[in-house]
């Protein structure tokens, strides 16, 4: 509206197009779209169209070479029957449960310890240390962790030998491999939940603790009765983000175990990758992708409902 009040200045400066319309707002109707164009065109082309295409492709059989043919729900039926796919989804769910529980527990415990009374240089050091793995590439981390978990020469088994544990066959047994994938994943990702918890803890007013300690709550009881309830919004966000990220795990199992031994550490995304780019079953890959997306959307929807019902806001 202010541009319209000063048509003279616009005339003095602007070109012919600028003073065609007395009403400035009319003139600039296209302007927001110029700002939005790169994002909208890019997202339309590389996100929205692929989403639709992915859903459509899930109902076709296509190997790039011959033209796609409509097969209805065949891909989904095949996916449901395929033992590898089924095992991979079960693996992914098991992985999510264990890894997320470990990640959140560790992050919460360390965040509480860091936020309590501590010399500030130590606090800065610990925070940076726990945050550090987040800046590394999951592929690089998996490369050096593979050496550390080597059965004969690895540092992990060497350390375990001091507490009397004989060499663990980490990467050659199903349980050992699953454990390594989980440990390496949590090692790298707990720092993210840690950051969220730090933020959540910082937003709890200190008077709450003062009141609680005057009521006689100390140590663990203070945290169980004050910290945890007040932290519940953060805990909800942190768990949903951790679950969604863990559902998409790929880099670590791909580099650490290649999905093996057998199918013991194969994950949902690994199966998408393999059926599309190794077996050229693009329809089936899309069907698995659609299922994974639906799971993620369901969890996000659940978060919205839960945050309305159960989470305690101040």
């Amino acid at each position, binding site marked *: 509206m202010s541009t319209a009040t000063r048509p003279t200045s616009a005339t003095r*400066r602007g070109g012919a197009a600028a003073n065609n319309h007395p009403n400035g707002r009319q003139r600039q109707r296209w302007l927001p779209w110029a700002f939005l164009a790169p994002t909208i065109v890019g997202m339309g082309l590389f996100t929205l169209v692929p*989403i639709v295409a992915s859903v459509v492709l899930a109902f076709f059989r296509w190997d790039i070479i011959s033209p796609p043919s409509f097969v209805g729900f065949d891909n989904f039926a095949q996916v449901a029957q395929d033992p590898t796919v089924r095992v991979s989804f079960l693996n992914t769910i098991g992985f999510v449960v264990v890894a997320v529980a470990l990640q959140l527990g560790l992050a919460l415990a360390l965040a509480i310890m860091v936020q309590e009374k501590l010399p500030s240089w*130590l606090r800065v050091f610990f925070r940076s240390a726990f945050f550090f793995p987040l800046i590394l590439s999951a592929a690089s981390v998996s490369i050096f962790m593979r050496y550390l978990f080597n059965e004969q020469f690895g540092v992990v088994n060497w350390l375990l030998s001091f507490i009397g544990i004989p060499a663990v066959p980490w990467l050659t047994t199903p349980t050992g491999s699953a454990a390594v994938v989980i440990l390496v994943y949590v090692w790298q990702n707990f720092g993210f939940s840690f950051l969220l918890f730090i*933020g959540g803890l910082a937003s709890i007013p200190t008077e709450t603790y003062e009141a609680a300690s005057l009521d006689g709550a100390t140590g663990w009881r203070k945290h169980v009765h004050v910290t945890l309830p007040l932290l519940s919004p953060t805990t909800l966000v942190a768990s949903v983000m951790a679950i969604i990220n863990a559902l998409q795990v790929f880099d670590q199992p791909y580099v650490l175990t290649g999905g093996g031994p057998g199918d013991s550490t194969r994950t949902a995304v690994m199966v998408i990758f393999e059926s599309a780019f190794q077996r050229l079953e693009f329809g089936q890959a899309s069907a698995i992708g659609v299922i994974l997306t639906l799971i993620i959307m369901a969890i996000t929807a659940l978060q919205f409902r839960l945050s309305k019902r159960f989470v305690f806001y101040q």
Partner: protein
Amino acid sequence: MTTTSTRRVVVGQPLPDRTVKRKKRNWSMAGRIVLLAIASVFILGPVLWTLSTSLRPPAESFQLPPSFLPINPDFSSYGQVFKQLNIMLLVLNSALVTGLIAVGQMLTSALAGYAFANLKFRGRGALFSIVLATMMVPVQVTIVPVFMLIRGMGLSDTLLALILPALPTAFGTFLMRQYFLGLPADLGEAAAIDGASPWRTFRSVYAPLAVPGMAIVGILAFNYHWNEFFRPLIMTISEQNFTLPLGLVSLQGNLGTGSISVVLAGVILSMIPALVVFMFGQRALRDGLTAGTGK
């Protein structure tokens, strides 16, 4: 209510256990420091081992007990990395891809974020919801159609196949919209009264003020794409188009367990840029990673 009455009781007491309490607190702090120190050893130990092993002769790679500090650094593995792997090309590819994506995302997100925050147009709310909704869909799910699209554009096995799809950013757009909403609106009004066109208002008034926000977007993009593995694995075929993480993984596969120190030297080299970002942009990185998750 209850707290005030309790307070009165406590204040009325003649400080019986002050010193006991303080001692107890010191002990609990010491205990916490020990636990936190153990945790940080577990976090930093593997990285220190990687560094020290990369600086020892290949023959000593699997030496036990391991050493976490290189005593007589031996740089031959670093020389080997350059010989066995065209690491300069990998670095160049990674730098090009990551740099262009970071700069591109800073620009696209600043423009779109500004439009969503400061410009009025029909369908603004709905469009913004769509942008946010795309964040829910994982890359792995759209990768098949994106791969086809890239093939159709004749860009398969090029660096552009990695760059182009990553230029628009839903999260960055969200972040920049928040950032522009935080800037005072009367600045734009004042500029408009002075006769500045909307573009000038953005370019000379708002954009300079939004540089810190754009820096967060850039740093996040750098951190993510420098370390990215999944998309390069699918989009590039020939080794000359590999990025660093992909090159390192294939180097490990080629060498077997022969010269670990060479692989680890490559891993350490690939960490350096991320480390620089960590040292100078840690705050921005932290703010960016946790943005939009609070409240």
